[in-house]
């Protein structure tokens, strides 16, 4: 672990940017048709449950990241294996998000630029940020938080002024009952983006005031859930459920509907800012967690030495994981969800928590981990 500390406010803002990340621009949970906002809100509520699991784990070991306390919970060997799995998972997801991001840019603005170049430029920036450390990332997130929020508000206002919103497109609510919604929740929205908060188990220990994790984390989850629901709801209200489910980037199509006074039109650049800033922070957080996890597992004092090798690996991985966009999406929706998200976001953390509770219970009411770890 790096010697650093961040404030609860910074954690909150970083989490918001992370949650918005790519979720804002991709068609998130569109199988729920016009009830997509409900699917997102349900995902958020269940995601809150997951976050609570991560939070409980954190309260047992407030000075340790996931890769370290897994070793304390299930023993050195299995803990290490778990740690390595998580590091690989974080790096893999970083590569996936990077790929998502590159593909989006490719199809939307740069049809003739090689994917590798786009990804490489982004990855270099990410590596630079991770090299500078979590404090710098957290500080930068405060600056970008406001710029992103201003852009979102501006977009909302403009789209309402442009008169493109038709709330009737959101009806009928619950056309086919709760079934399809929960299907979407359990196959998509729970894991991306809410279950991905698992990555913050690597960042919680940096918090200056440990007792504020709960508040910052849950507020971030709540706010980003509501925001994402509003964005997707807005997409449906502007484009109609049918268009949204067929679109690759519903938000882009929505923004393109903005036409005000023959002057403010084609504001694709707003979409682009949201895409790049969001994507950037998502990759940064995953990549940082991966790098720190690896440094923690292999006892490397200066984690910076891992940034370049791992960064290059992630860059190549992002190219190599799929031969085209369709394959990439299919992998993401089917294989990654079943074999990665469900076990790593839900099953293992819950098991870890149960074992930790049993272990702590055996040693008496006062959990020793909580106080003992404070002086490393």
């Amino acid at each position, binding site marked *: 672990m790096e010697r650093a500390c961040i404030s609860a406010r910074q954690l909150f803002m970083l989490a918001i940017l992370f949650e918005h990340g790519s979720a804002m621009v991709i068609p998130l949970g569109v199988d729920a048709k016009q009830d997509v906002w409900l699917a997102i809100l349900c995902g958020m509520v269940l995601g809150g449950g997951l976050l609570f699991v991560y939070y409980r784990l954190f309260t047992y070991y407030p000075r340790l990241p996931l890769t370290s306390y897994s070793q304390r919970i299930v023993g050195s060997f299995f803990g290490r294996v778990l740690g390595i799995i998580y590091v690989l998972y974080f790096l893999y997801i970083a590569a996936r998000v990077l790929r998502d991001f590159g593909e989006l840019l490719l199809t939307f603005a740069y049809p003739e630029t090689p994917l590798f170049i786009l990804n490489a430029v982004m990855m270099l920036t990410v590596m630079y940020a991770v090299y500078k450390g979590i404090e710098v990332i957290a500080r*930068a997130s405060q600056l970008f938080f406001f710029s992103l929020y201003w852009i979102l508000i501006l977009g909302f206002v403009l789209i309402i002024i442009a008169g493109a919103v038709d709330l009737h497109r959101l009806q009928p609510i619950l056309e086919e009952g709760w079934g399809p919604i929960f299907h979407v929740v359990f196959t998509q929205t729970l894991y991306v983006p809410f279950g991905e908060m698992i990555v913050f188990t690597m960042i919680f220990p940096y918090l200056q005031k440990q007792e504020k994790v709960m508040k910052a984390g849950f507020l971030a989850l709540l706010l980003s859930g509501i925001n994402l629901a509003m964005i997707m709801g807005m997409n449906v209200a502007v484009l109609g459920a049918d268009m949204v489910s067929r679109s690759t980037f519903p938000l882009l199509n929505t923004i393109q509907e903005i036409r005000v006074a023959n*002057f403010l039109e084609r504001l694709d650049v707003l979409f682009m800012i949201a895409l790049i800033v969001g994507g950037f922070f998502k990759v940064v957080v995953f990549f940082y967690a991966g790098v720190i996890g690896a440094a923690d597992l292999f006892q490397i004092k200066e984690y910076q030495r891992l940034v370049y090798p791992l960064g290059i690996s992630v860059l190549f991985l992002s190219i190599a994981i799929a031969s085209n966009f369709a394959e990439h999406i299919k992998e993401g929706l089917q294989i990654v969800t079943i074999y990665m998200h469900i076990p790593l976001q839900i099953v293992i953390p819950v098991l870890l928590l149960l074992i930790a509770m049993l272990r702590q219970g055996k040693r008496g009411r006062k959990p020793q981990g909580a106080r003992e770890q404070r002086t490393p």
Partner: protein
Amino acid sequence: MWLRLRNQNKKQVYQYDKVAQEGIYGTIERDLHANIEKVRNITGNSADIVIRRFLLGKEENLSSALCFVSGMVDENMVQQLLIEASVQLSFPSTCCDQLDYIEKKIATANTTRRVKQWNEVFSLLMSGESILFIHGMQEAISIAVKGGEYRAITEPSTQLSIRGPREGFTESLGTNVAMVRRRIQHPHVRVEAITVGEVTHTNVRMMYMKEIADDNIVEEVRSRLQRICMDGVLESGYIEQLIEDETFTTFPTIYHTERPDSVAANLLEGRVAIFVEGTPFVLIAPAVFIQFFQAVEDYYARFDIATALRFLRILVFFISLVAPSLYIAATTFHQEMIPTSLVIAIAAQRESVPFPAFVEAVIMEVTFEILREAGVRLPRTVGQAVSIVGALVIGQAAVEAGFVSSVMVIVVSITAIASFATPSFAIAVSARLIRFLLMVLAALFGFYGILIGLIWMTIHLCSLRSFGVPYMTPLAPLIPTNLRDTFVRFPLWALTDRPHGITEETNIVRQGDEQRPEHNQETRREGDEN
């Protein structure tokens, strides 16, 4: 030989101070003649070292000599001193210590001290004091008659303001320090003297407010100043470069100003000012990013106007940063984002231009930078010629010759004006450099490149620190109370806190409660009745 080679194969070690003083060890001798010879020898018989020999006292029994550097002393005072010493001074018949008597009796208006060591003699002599050698005495008297010509106090040339004091710093250290002290008449204003430069012996003053400035920051500044060990420190820029936190950045992490009111305001916010002899630019540390967009006038004008101007300045900074790269990106990659009629107009103009937008932009920007540089360095009379030629070349001829499109001219002009409108030159220069980087990125990747460049810049800004204070304070780390004096400037009565993180945390409130002016309702009602 000033520098001695220790070992031919090894790296030379800096040892100027040691070598330089080697020749002038020892104490003053009794013999006046020998002393004068010593002074002549050491100074190489330099023409501006004046050695005035005279007989001391009415009785004319003590041959003595007054040594000083011409031009560095107040000639009137020296004259008076000589008259006093040779004509008016008379020794009482019973005198215990002649030297003591002389010291007390002459130059009563000036500070005097007795010196014995040669190195002391020379450092005092070179700093502009006069040394009085007396035959038969093993000590000399050094008399402070410092003077000489300095530029008068004039209006600062770099930071003009419409409202506010008109005086700017001069090259005289004493005057500068006094100008600030006159503004803060409180014993807590601390001034520490440090001499830097092994050869130049430049006087440096560190000024801060006890109790307001954070002790750690003061200590950090002090220790960084004391670390400096080099031949010459000729301007505050030397010191700035030697004590700043990060060398490899285009952003200034130390603020400099020519205005005493600005220094006073910064001292009251708990910052440390560094005065350097021989320059009107005073350094202020720690500096944060937003400080470079603040002008003293913001606080003299009413808050609404100040706020509007602050917004304007931030906007202007962004324009000077991205305007050419936006043009490149829009015309090269994202034509669809420009309104149709405008894109047709641009395309029509660019039809005759033989270069891609990037080359066009680089040509124009470089031309402009050349013009600006020429305008800065040239004598004023020639400068006008430059601007005429520049206006013709940039403005009309280039467009008519088909080198560049007229839209490009507009973009360059806006950029130029915007970079002039940035209140701090230091930050405007860094925008100039980054602008070219962004132009390259825009030519390669369009808006994506610009955004990546800006993200890179933001990360870099967030990673900077100035004397331990994060550079983007109070934006990141976010300090809500201090946001009142960033992009906006709240009414003065609402600026209750000094900057957190810079000021001593236990003493953060800077004004009493209820500073808001109360409307005197009763008097107004009376007025209505009449």
